[in-house]
């Protein structure tokens, strides 16, 4: 968020068509994602879970994008740091915790996949894998279905800047551009591919690659959720109007290490991390809400308490929930009867 005068700020979310409640809901969602993430780091350090891959610093853009989409219709193909995004489109903290503890009831994978490998058909969150950026052509294929079936939904896909170098990103962009498909392709540029910094990973600018594919490419400050909201909403309007894809490059910073198996200070300095921590979009957005006169420290404390209770409950629930039966390993390789997708 760019700090500006309060009277001008007060109208920003309203100008975008967001009510005060929605603006606050966005904040609550990004704060929930942040606190969920922090809890997982603790759980891993305490030996309660094996692994966590973090999205700290990326929540404002993720949540803003979720709010800008049609959460009743659109299809979502998030990548493994998108806790804020999936919470934004309706996944619950309990559902996320069931995945973290790899329990049978986990809607993402029934405890089969690593945490962060989202999937939830009822919410149209499309199942994902670990080889990066394979989801871009999937999003393109779903958008192709939207076009063929004359449906007014879009597909929205995210990935990191490191994986924007994969062939599937380029093949998917070109395919979507040729057929003018309703897909929004958003790169969450957090400046690191594990340890490899942006300048050793990406030649040129990612958003400018869209020029080569013949559709708009937009760079946006990922720490400014209202700006991300605006850009995604416009991209969605273009998509449903039949004007084709949009590439969005949201600039942000991965404040946490790549995962709980990573020591990030081996390849970057504390000073650098602190510099970006000062730009943390969650804190700036909170200040924005306060400046608008619709938020205060008292409400913030209440919200934090509420979030803590939700996460405590989810942690307890996830921890206690049963693991899958060992023999269930053998199930769902293929459809087990005719109701499972054949016709």
């Amino acid at each position, binding site marked *: 968020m760019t700090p500006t005068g309060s009277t001008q700020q007060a109208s920003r979310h309203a100008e975008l068509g967001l009510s005060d409640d929605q603006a606050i809901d966005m904040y609550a969602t990004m704060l929930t994602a942040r606190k969920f993430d922090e809890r997982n780091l603790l759980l891993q350090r305490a030996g309660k879970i094996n692994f966590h891959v973090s999205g700290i610093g990326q929540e404002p853009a993720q949540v803003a994008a979720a709010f800008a989409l049609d959460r009743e219709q659109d*299809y979502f193909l998030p990548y493994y740091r998108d806790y804020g995004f999936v919470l934004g489109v309706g996944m619950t903290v309990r559902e996320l915790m069931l995945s973290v503890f790899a329990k049978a009831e*986990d*809607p*993402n*994978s*029934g*405890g*089969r*996949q690593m945490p962060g*490998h989202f*999937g*939830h*058909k009822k919410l149209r969150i*499309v*199942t994902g*894998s670990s*080889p990066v950026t*394979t989801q*871009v*052509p*999937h*999003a*393109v*294929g*779903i*958008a*192709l*279905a*939207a*076009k*063929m079936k004359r449906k007014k939904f879009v*597909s929205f896909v995210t990935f990191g800047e490191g994986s924007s170098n994969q*062939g*599937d990103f380029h*093949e*998917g962009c*070109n*395919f979507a551009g*040729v*057929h003018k498909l309703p897909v929004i392709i958003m790169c969450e540029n957090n400046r690191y591919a594990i340890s490899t910094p942006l300048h050793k990973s990406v030649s040129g600018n990612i958003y400018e690659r869209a020029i080569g594919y013949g559709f708009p490419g937009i760079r946006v400050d990922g720490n400014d959720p209202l700006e991300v909201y605006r850009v995604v909403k416009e991209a969605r309007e273009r998509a449903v109007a039949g004007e084709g894809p949009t590439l969005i490059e949201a600039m942000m910073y991965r404040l946490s290490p790549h995962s709980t198996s990573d020591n990030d200070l081996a390849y970057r300095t504390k000073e650098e991390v602190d510099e970006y921590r000062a730009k943390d979009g969650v804190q700036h957005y909170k200040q924005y809400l306060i400046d608008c006169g619709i938020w205060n420290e008292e409400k913030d404390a209440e919200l934090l308490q509420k979030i803590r209770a939700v996460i405590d409950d989810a942690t307890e629930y996830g921890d206690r929930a049963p693991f899958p039966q060992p023999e269930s390993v053998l*199930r*769902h*390789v*293929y*459809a087990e009867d*005719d109701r*499972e*997708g*054949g*016709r």
Partner: protein
Amino acid sequence: MARMEYIDAIRLAMKEEMERDEDVFVLGEDVGVKGGVFTTTKGLQEQFGEERVLDTPLSESAIAGAAIGAAMYGMKPIAEMQYSDFMFPATNQIISEAAKIRYRSNNDWSCPLVIRAPIGGGIFGGLYHSQCPESVFFGTPGLKIVAPYTAYDAKGLLKAAVRDPDPVLFFENKKCYKLVTGEVPETDYIVPIGKANVLREGDDITVISYSLPLHFALEAAEELAQEGITAHILDLRTLQPLDKEGILEAARRTGKVLIIHEDNKFGGIGGEVSAILAEEMLYELDAPIMRLCGPDVPAMPINPPSEKFFMLNKDKVKEAMRQLAQY
């Protein structure tokens, strides 16, 4: 019932399935206006329009990946790989994605996708228009793999593949396109995936094969019958899942088994068929299991003597069959 070429049977299957279900569509390189480089999709765009017979960019991973996305939405895509040699860029999409979508989502999502790819040599295609890549995908749970030999099976298996709830690789043999003809009903039928088929009955030796080499085996069997050697010939039709019962039954008929495929021998499907026989009926065998396969070289060269050396033919197959009979 009409007599038609193998390639016509494949085309007819697509046409009928597209007429039956508006969610079935074809995508691939040059499949539309041109009707495919082999004419497999000829006439389909005229009948069904540009959207349902979609010319794609030259981009195999995107063809497979977009088809996977559409299938997850609920469409029934038939993705064409122009040559199976060119499907390797799509291997990550096929093995890491399509094959695992149902499993990794604990049955929440599914991927009812067909990928058609022409296999095999003998057409002066050189290293990269002749390969048999079955063994690359074989052994990937979550995939089904079919490889028809007869025109009847080509139609029936493709229709079954389209209706299947899971991803199916349909390996059609490009040498068979015009070489193989047969009676094909112009009515609706399917050939079930996972069932082998006895093409010829005999009592002296059992030949287990799939795709083009069956052509040579049938010709050889005809000639060997004149010498008093009768061959029992099993067409696997589906490579994954293998029809274990069908394999054991055919092997028990004679107690002597020859496995034939054009894909190279080491790591090929014949190894798995042999293992099934060894595990289940070793002491019922009257001779060591024999395999006749493509040589273990990267792929077949284009010059005619080399291609001829690489390819199976009636004489090579007949000689192997006779050897086994005389064991």
